């Protein structure tokens, strides 16, 4: 057995940031994981990719606090519909302070706010990836 952790990374909707995503992708690569990076995607595309690529982790980034929560609700809804609840879902970027607990309530496993150490993302994944 030679298992490798597979991580899907995507930017949510029309969010146009780039640098943070590249830094996280690089860190994940150097951490020995296989990163399937799909750029900007809507919830349907994210969930279908997670299914076809059989990833262990779904990592979503968004700096658009106005639409993040609503789109994340749709992401989590489709994940449930497609029976992908075994995936670890992490979210990085900006949401309104009041919305942080709501992310967790809808099933997001961890939230990484701006300024998070990239290594902490990699080690969180390694420690919490479903066996």
């Amino acid at each position, binding site marked *: *057995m*030679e*298992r*490798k952790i*597979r991580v899907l990374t995507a930017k949510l909707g029309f969010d146009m940031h780039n640098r943070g995503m590249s830094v996280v*992708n*690089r860190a*994940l*690569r*150097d*951490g*020995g*994981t*296989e*990163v*399937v*990076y*799909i*750029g900007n*995607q809507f919830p*349907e*595309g994210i969930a*279908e*990719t997670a*299914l*076809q*690529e*059989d990833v262990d982790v779904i990592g979503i980034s968004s700096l658009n606090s106005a639409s993040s929560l609503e789109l994340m609700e749709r992401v989590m809804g489709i994940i449930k519909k497609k*029976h992908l609840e075994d995936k670890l879902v992490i979210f990085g970027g900006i949401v309104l302070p009041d919305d942080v607990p709501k992310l967790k309530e809808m099933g997001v496993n961890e939230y990484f706010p701006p300024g998070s150490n990239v290594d902490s993302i990699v080690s969180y994944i390694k420690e919490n990836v479903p066996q």
Partner: protein
Amino acid sequence: MDIAKEVLNGNKRAVSRMITLIENKDPVAKEIINELYPHTGSGKIVGITGPPGVGKSTLVDQMIKEWRKRDKKIAVVAIDPTSPFHGGAILGDRIRMQDNFLDENVFIRSMGTRGAYGGLSKSTGEAVNVFDAAGYDIILIETVGAGQVEVDIAKLAHTTTVVVVPGLGDAIQTMKAGMFEIPDIIVVNKADLTGADDAVMELELMLAWAPKIEWKMSVLKTIALENDGIEELLDEVERHWKYLEETGMLYKREETRYEEELVDLVTENIKESVLKEIKSNGKLDMIVKKIVSRKITPYTAADEILAGLKPNK
């Protein structure tokens, strides 16, 4: 879930899971492959190879769309390099294929090379068989960005397409061994760039010297981003299949593929069992020490190890 049965039913989740089991060398995978194998052999395998950045993924994206119009069910295996240093990989081919993400009859799977150096991963052939068993008509394989020697695709695919762009070099490059020995079809992509006609001319000149076989190879021009030349490319691929079928070459290609795979499997198994034996009793360490202190040569050591192996009953 009975994975073999569900793969045969075309269940996407089962297909996806099965490829993971294969990639991770899970012992369960072998049994499932044995169940699936009799149901393979009808899918057409198309390889897309060429240097990094020539537009392979974009071309594949357009080929999927065009084949969907022709009502084919398409699977894609897209391979990107695994880091030899950390074992990680950025699998970034899929990002160019976004238009086809939600099509029920398209399945895209990204793979890291995981230590293989021929442009594919070790699991590519088995993943192709899974898609074949699951009822995909066409399995497109996009290799890693390939240079001159990553030519394993030619042994696996029924039709190998080499993609280049204008300005990659002069006629000398086309004479070199490797990449230009494998194509059934050559594509000059980004044909709107200066030098496209020169590139086509030089490649056609090379073909004039190619061994005379019944298959007349062509050099096609495409502009993948603008969906230009894709229909002609698909027509050419389908014409090649017809040629393979009519001449019996299809059978020959399958023979080549499975001879290669069989030899690989046997070699791999022998290697593993030999290493297991000589590592387990400290023999390897001992012999290495003798070599380093010049008491014995590496060749004699290898002969000694092989002579001492117990033959498997």
